[in-house]
């Protein structure tokens, strides 16, 4: 990857990094951090679903694994939070590789793959809710100790910058993937798996690489979530909400594009915020809007926009 490939991502990162300098309102930074964490989760989904065409309905399995691993290792074993964060990414990636191996080796595609990922996430949720190791139904509380060495900060600005840096890293990684052999082969598998195999693409290996990377990135989002909110339970970590968030943002912003998940997450969460300020805090209303937007986007695909961006950038 050259600088020419990377500059839009770097420009985005630089502009976004200025936010804390202008905004000091806690609620807005809070909103920005939460949205960025979801961007990261969505970017993970985008690699497998957007580029690879394998629609997972269970990315919660990876988000939750990242979150619980980060939490459990520091609460129960006193491991440094930065280390537990990295361990969470590794474990989520490993979970992705295992689920991928089992499903792809069995030849599961399309709806079947969506179903099996959903089922895996549910198994994790039921387990995490039942066993004492994870804190069970009461959840897991990470003790507040706001020192940088603990990956906790007194003010939100620093955490914002760390989350942003990770999002930029994920975007660069996606951009590099797009320009690489693996990326080309992944897209080929999405478009036509048979034809790709005939051209020497090891479809199983390519899909496994994609789900591992995808799971690792979404796992990082889980780890950040745990570290920011200092609390995890089974519905947060392994609930269907995060599987849905991770999939909605790329679909709405443009699946299989570098900025799709970012655009989608920002659009969705701004919409949700706007609705809340209009009609008040009615539970579920934001998700009603998401659902309607999703149906509309599928019904009237805004192909023009991402296609334009893509055409410009490919030169």
């Amino acid at each position: 990857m050259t600088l020419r490939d990377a500059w839009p991502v770097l420009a985005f990162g630089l502009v976004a990094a200025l936010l804390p300098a202008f905004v000091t309102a806690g609620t807005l930074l809070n909103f920005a951090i939460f949205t960025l964490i979801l961007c990261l989760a969505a970017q993970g989904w985008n690699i497998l679903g957007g580029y690879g065409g394998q629609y997972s309905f269970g990315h919660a399995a990876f988000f939750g694994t990242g979150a619980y691993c980060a939490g459990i290792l520091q609460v129960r074993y006193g491991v440094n939070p930065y280390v537990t964060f990295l361990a969470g990414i590794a474990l989520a990636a490993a979970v992705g590789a295992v689920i991928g191996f089992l499903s792809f080796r069995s030849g599961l595609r399309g709806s079947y793959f969506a179903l099996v990922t959903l089922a895996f996430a549910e198994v994790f949720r039921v387990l995490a809710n039942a066993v004492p190791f994870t804190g069970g139904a009461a959840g897991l509380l990470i003790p507040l100790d706001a020192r940088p060495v603990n990956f906790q900060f007194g003010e939100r600005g620093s955490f914002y910058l760390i989350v942003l840096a990770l999002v930029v890293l994920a975007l660069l990684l996606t951009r590099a993937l797009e320009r690489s052999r693996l990326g080309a082969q992944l897209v080929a598998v999405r478009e036509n798996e048979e034809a790709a195999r005939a051209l020497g693409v090891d479809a199983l290996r390519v899909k496994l690489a994609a789900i591992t990377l995808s799971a690792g990135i979404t796992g990082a989002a889980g780890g950040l979530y745990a570290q920011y909110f200092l609390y995890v339970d089974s519905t947060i970590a392994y609930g269907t909400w995060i599987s849905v968030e991770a999939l909605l943002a790329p679909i709405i912003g443009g699946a299989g594009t570098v900025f799709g998940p970012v655009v989608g997450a920002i659009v969705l969460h701004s919409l949700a915020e706007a609705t809340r300020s209009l009609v008040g805090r009615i539970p579920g209303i934001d998700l009603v809007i998401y659902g309607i937007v999703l149906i509309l986007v599928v019904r009237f695909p805004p192909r023009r926009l991402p296609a334009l961006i893509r055409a410009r950038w490919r030169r």
Partner: protein
Amino acid sequence: MNSFPPEIVLEAVANGLLTGAVYGLVALGLTLVYGVLHIINFAHGALLTLAMYAAWVAWAAFGLDPYVAIIPLVPIFFAAGYAVQRLVIGPASRGDDQNILLVTLGLSIVLENAMLAIFRSDTLSVQVDYAMEVVEAPLFFSAPMLLSFPRLVGFGVAFLVAGVLFVLLTMTDTGRAIRAVAKERTGAALSGIDVAHIYAVTFGIGTACLAVAACLLLPSFYVNPRVGNAFVLVAFTIVVMGGMGSVPGALLGGLVIGVVESLSGLYLGDSLGQLGIFVIFILVLLFRPTGLFGARA
């Protein structure tokens, strides 16, 4: 692992069979839609929740017994299902598998959260005097088994509905058209069958099955905005196990899953009871995706 006396295990099996029949009914709608439209309807669970709320409103606002509410709710839900397929899923999917997944997912998100917005997350139930009633089933080797009356009714009605559906599919023109579309869509269209209409009718029938199931569940169960989720994965498991699109497979699968859930609840406790189902689901998907009872495609 605990060991239980045989009559306790037998009672758990019997209760599992009774619950399983209603599961089978939920799965019946799902498998019918899959068999004919070849789509996986992720909104199935949310539609069940909707039906349960409808039955609850019928009781709370109009004083209708849930069993009586079946009569108005079946045509209403048939019409709703028809409209949803005709106006939302059909036009948005454009025949693409992944679009259908997304649209039905979107639909389930909308329905589930609309109900959360309207009814909040409180758990509601109906109070009917037969809710706790039990029927004694004699056992020759020990004291009689106690079977829940609402579940017995559910069992009977579920099989009645399956019977009606069988007659509908085999003896009527619409039924024949549905089976023709399921087998060979293009051929059916060429012989003058309105495929979009048949799709919508099938979706309507599937949704009407949910209305019946909701009314059967309500006397002994509760309703909250997420209640459908618990059933939908169970229903998916049944459908995959019974062979996607197979009607008898759905009923048989329902009974099996009912027993599995009841026994794993007995041995593992309630919180882990569901796990048995998910594990079966994953194993079947991975190793026998064409179903345990279905032929290999």
